[in-house]
C-alpha cells in the first residue's frame, strides 16, 4: 500500500502560512494559544458543572461563568496585541481574514432565516459563530495564498 502524500501546492501554502511570522509574532501567538486553550478547558468545565447541577444558580453560577469569561477577555487582549505588533503583511492578512469571518457571519445571521422559512434546519448564534470562525480560517488561507 502506498504512503499518503501531501500535494506540493498544499506544502507550499503551509510553508507560506508558517513563514509569515517573525519570532516576535510567534511568541505573541503562543501566548494567544495559551489563552484560547485555557478558555476552551474552563468553558467545557463550566458547561459540564452547570449542566450536571453541581453548581447552583445565583452567585456560584455567575462566579462559574466569570472564569471562562476571564480567559475569553485574555484571548481577545492577546489577539489584539498580536495584530497590533505583527509583521505588516501578517497584519494585512489578519485584516482580510477578520473581514471575511465577520462578513460571512453577519450575512449568515441576516439571510439564514429566509432559508429556515423555506424548510432548512434551525440555526442560532452558536452556528453563526462556528461559520464565522470557519470563514475567518478560510479567509486567512485565501489571503496568504494571494501574497505568496
Amino acid at each position: 500500500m502506498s504512503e499518503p502524500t501531501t500535494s506540493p501546492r498544499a506544502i507550499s501554502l503551509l510553508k507560506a502560512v508558517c513563514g509569515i511570522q517573525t519570532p516576535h509574532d510567534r511568541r505573541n501567538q503562543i501566548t494567544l494559544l495559551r489563552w484560547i486553550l485555557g478558555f476552551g478547558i474552563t468553558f467545557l468545565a463550566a458547561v459540564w458543572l452547570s449542566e450536571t447541577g453541581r453548581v447552583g444558580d445565583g452567585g456560584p453560577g455567575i462566579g462559574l461563568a466569570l472564569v471562562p469569561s476571564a480567559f475569553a477577555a485574555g484571548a481577545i487582549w492577546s489577539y489584539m496585541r498580536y495584530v497590533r505588533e505583527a509583521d505588516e503583511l501578517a497584519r494585512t492578512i489578519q485584516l482580510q481574514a477578520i473581514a471575511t469571518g465577520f462578513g460571512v457571519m453577519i450575512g449568515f445571521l441576516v439571510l439564514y432565516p429566509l432559508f429556515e422559512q423555506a424548510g432548512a434546519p434551525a440555526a442560532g448564534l452558536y452556528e453563526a459563530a462556528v461559520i464565522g470562525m470557519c470563514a475567518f480560517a478560510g479567509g486567512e488561507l485565501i489571503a496568504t495564498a494571494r501574497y505568496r
Partner: protein
Amino acid sequence: MKNNLKDLRADRGWSQGDLAEQLGVSRQTVNALENGKYDPSLPLAFKIADTFGRKIEDVFVWSAT
C-alpha cells in the same frame, strides 16, 4: 509600485531571511515585496532604503499599472 529589491539583495549576497531579519519582518513579507504582490508601508519602505544606503526613489518606482 515596482522595486529592485531582488537585485539590491542579490548584490549583497543576502538571502530573503537575512534581509527580513534586518528589517524586522517575516521572510514571506520580503518575498511578497520582491514579487510585487505587496506594497510596503511608508516606514518600511524608508527602512528598506536605509538598509541598502539608497534613497527611497532608488529602490521603489511608482507604476500606475
